[in-house]
């Protein structure tokens, strides 16, 4: 699995720095970097939306590496 973060500007009032998350070239989600308007969370990354199994995550990621780890775990085959 190849996870790629592609820079993109977001249509937000403040949180305009974004990344398209591509997994093997397919759009899997959109990350936004939180602006100063978010106080203590400023600079962290937030999953605005995710597709398929990546549907919902209210976690803020410290940096893009943390986001990458989360995506890797989320798409890992179920070990049940």
């Amino acid at each position, binding site marked *: 699995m190849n996870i790629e973060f592609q820079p993109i500007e977001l249509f937000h*009032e*403040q949180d305009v720095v974004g990344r398209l998350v591509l997994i093997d070239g397919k759009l899997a989600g959109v990350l936004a970097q939180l602006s100063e308007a*978010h106080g203590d*969370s400023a600079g962290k990354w937030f999953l605005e939306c995710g597709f398929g199994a990546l549907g919902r995550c*209210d976690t*803020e990621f410290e940096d893009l590496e943390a986001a990458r780890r989360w995506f890797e775990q989320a798409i890992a085959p179920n070990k049940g």
Partner: protein
Amino acid sequence: MTDYDRLIRRLETIAGLNDEDKLALRQLPLRKRAFDENRDLVSQGDKPTECCVILEGMAARYKIVSGGRRQIISLHFAGDLPDLQSLYLDRMDHGLFALTPVRAAFMPHESVRALIRRNDRINDILIRYALIDAAIFRQWIANIGRRTAYERIAHVFCEVYVRMRTLTLTEEGSLHLPMTQAELGDATGLSPVHVNRVLQRMRKDGLIVSRGDVHAVANWERLRRAADFTDEYLHLRQLRTA
């Protein structure tokens, strides 16, 4: 205002009470307790033998879902009876926690049951109380299920404002809602990030003004319209607003 007056004032937003009813309510034994912010008044799984009345502060009912995520399912103020159902349902299927420091009083189920067997009017009022509770839950389901983030938060503000105004717990135009963005998110099914963005837009649009986690109504009519809010589901008597 005595602790009994708070309960009586709340019940009078549902229906009128005569002197005999009030005297009977004043004879209920109240065991008073104080709770720090974030402490449970009653927890899921408890089997209470008392019902509680909020005397001061704000409390919320909640459920925890998988992964420890919390959904706040209702908000409660002075005079409210947030675990009235425990009178008939043995086991708490949700918890009740203090959003702010809370003072509450606990009334033994036996005493409440004895009172409603003696007094039909109070019995009817408590049944109406439980039915109105259900109406509020219906409204919250519609709110969380089908409204936008902006509308949801505006709706919670409108409800809190109208309920607190009716209980004369807040001044005209002033909304004391000491909820953090995470708590507002738990009440509206939104992430703190979304709550923060919505609050900023609401301030920019002139609907509310905020100081930290305390918000005030800046323009009631616009807030009401943004939320598509009507107070009919609260079934309140003696409405002073709207």
